[in-house]
């Protein structure tokens, strides 16, 4: 399948260039986000009856992991409300760029931190407390508010969207998995960018802002750091930016050699497996350990969680890198081969989320009518009783996701192994073993 340029269609292109459709979605999302914070802080402490828990961790999560990430990559980032207030403050404008320069510090992000290690850490921090976060409305409210204020704070100190690019715990894994999505933003002709004066896509112009994600579109080769904000589509004076449909996982044909991205793959794969065991498994002792934050059993849980992700899984994977010449080449091969874990990790999350979401989706209707758990009945659905949905398709759906992910990862391993000049078979074997464990945990 070749690429199909969606922006060739004038209606699509105009809709993407115009700021108003995006602003309308942004405003709705921001209102929903602020309401989720308020609901978390002042609504009922019963998670399954509170808008913040039900709409963030069931509804939003389902849309994100089952639809947005697999099919639109960073599509969520294009409408995410978290950076908005900070960005408006930073720019001193809501829509079109004003003539004046930003009035805040506008510093460059420190060079040593221009990677996704901070995102890895921020995700793990949330992951370690996830049993509390996913179930306790006021903790969810505090975390959502914290993310909003962190984004505002960073926007006043650093240029562009420093929070999204370097700190957001969600953005890190969306970026990783966006490489598999069948949609991309790319330039049409490199030569046009090479001769373009002023590079307005990066530096901004009267038509739009310089790339908020600190990416020069002329050098884009993968989706990881492109937030699909469409600023470059607005600023390019040569009509050289295109939004394309493409085959799934096209970016993984040229695997990354970065260790921060490699470890992101392990963090996501390992977390999905641990969550499947702790949250969906029948073992009460694991649930107690994960929930009772600060106790000795929680510290053991945290230690096992971190060592599984940073030691056990990478160490076994390192055995797949069958040739050791020197450390740099080994690290490069390790990182390249770990790209095979990206489709598998995404499918692990799909399989995990299917179970969680189908079981708890009926809370959405009740919460819609009574979002704060105060006895309201706005749409007549407050009394909707809890009932798992579509349980008969759950196991086949999970098998399809996991075995499909295994096949997808094995094909990716083949390409990565060709690039790394090693055999793909050990990596495929690794993928098979972790898939078997995940099948056992979920089925």
């Amino acid at each position, binding site marked *: 399948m070749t690429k199909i340029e969606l922006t060739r269609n004038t209606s699509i292109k105009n809709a993407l260039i115009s700021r108003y459709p995006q602003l309308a979605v942004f405003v709705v999302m921001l209102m929903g986000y602020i309401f989720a914070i308020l609901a978390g802080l002042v609504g009922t402490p019963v998670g399954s009856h509170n808008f913040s828990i039900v709409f963030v961790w069931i509804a939003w999560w389902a849309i994100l992991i089952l639809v947005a990430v697999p099919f639109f990559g960073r599509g969520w980032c294009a409408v995410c409300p978290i950076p908005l207030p900070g960005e408006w403050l930073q720019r001193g404008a809501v829509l079109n760029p004003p003539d004046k320069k930003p009035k805040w510090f506008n510093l460059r992000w420190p060079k040593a931190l221009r990677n996704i290690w901070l995102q890895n850490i921020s995700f793990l921090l949330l992951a370690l407390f996830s049993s509390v976060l996913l179930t306790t409305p006021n903790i969810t409210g505090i975390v959502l508010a914290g993310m909003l204020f962190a984004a505002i704070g960073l926007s006043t100190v650093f240029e562009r969207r420093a929070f999204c690019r370097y700190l957001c715990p969600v953005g890190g894994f969306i970026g990783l998995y966006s490489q598999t999505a069948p949609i991309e933003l790319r330039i049409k002709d490199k030569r046009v960018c090479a001769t373009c004066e002023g590079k307005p896509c990066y530096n901004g112009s009267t038509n739009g802002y310089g790339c908020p994600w600190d990416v020069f579109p002329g050098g884009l080769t993968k989706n990881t750091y492109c937030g699909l904000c469409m600023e470059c589509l607005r600023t390019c004076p040569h009509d050289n930016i295109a939004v394309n449909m493409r085959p799934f996982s096209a970016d993984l044909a040229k695997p990354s050699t970065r260790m921060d991205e490699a470890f992101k793959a392990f963090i996501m794969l390992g977390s999905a497996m641990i969550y499947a065991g702790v949250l969906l498994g029948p073992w009460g002792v694991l649930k107690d350990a994960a929930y009772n934050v600060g106790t000795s059993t929680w510290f053991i849980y945290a230690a096992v969680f971190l060592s599984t992700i940073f030691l056990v899984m990478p160490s076994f994977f390192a055995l797949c890198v069958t040739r050791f010449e020197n450390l740099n080449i080994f690290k490069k091969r390790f990182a390249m081969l770990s790209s095979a874990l990206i489709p598998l990790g995404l499918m692990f999350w799909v399989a995990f989320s299917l179970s969680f979401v189908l079981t708890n989706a009926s809370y959405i209707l009740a919460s819609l009518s009574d979002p704060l758990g105060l006895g309201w009945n706005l749409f007549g659905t407050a009394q909707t009783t809890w009932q798992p949905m579509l349980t008969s398709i759950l196991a086949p759906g999970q098998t399809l996701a996991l075995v499909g992910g295994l096949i997808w990862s094995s094909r990716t391993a083949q390409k990565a192994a060709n690039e790394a000049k090693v055999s793909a078979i050990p990596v495929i074997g690794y993928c098979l073993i972790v898939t078997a464990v995940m*099948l056992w945990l979920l*089925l």
Partner: protein
Amino acid sequence: MAGLAVAFAPLPVQPIRPQERTFQIEARQFAYSPSELNVNPGDTITIRLISTDVVHGLYVDGYDVSVEADPGQTATLTFTATKPGSFRFRCNITCGAMHPFMIGKLTVGANDWLFRSAGLAMVAVLGIVILVKRS
């Protein structure tokens, strides 16, 4: 073809005489004890649910049957395990923060779906390895 065979081919079933099985399950925030039950297809299952702290329920996925127990009280649920496979049972009365994750597991007969899925994964990988070797 091999994948289809692994996924759908009928497996030999050893006929086992149905029995009456009674399980006493203690429910507390947020766990059941015992949390894993194994029975044979056709068995009549009686679950005596004892709640040791707050009100808890027990709902069996796939069977759509449930029971509720007040604190310190015992409630009884009886049903026949007509469907083979692995099913989660879970609390259906909001009982606290971790309520959505208060889960147990009922296995009726062998967990065929797990074995078939693992077999499917093996067949898929074998096919890809053969392709890798040929390329």
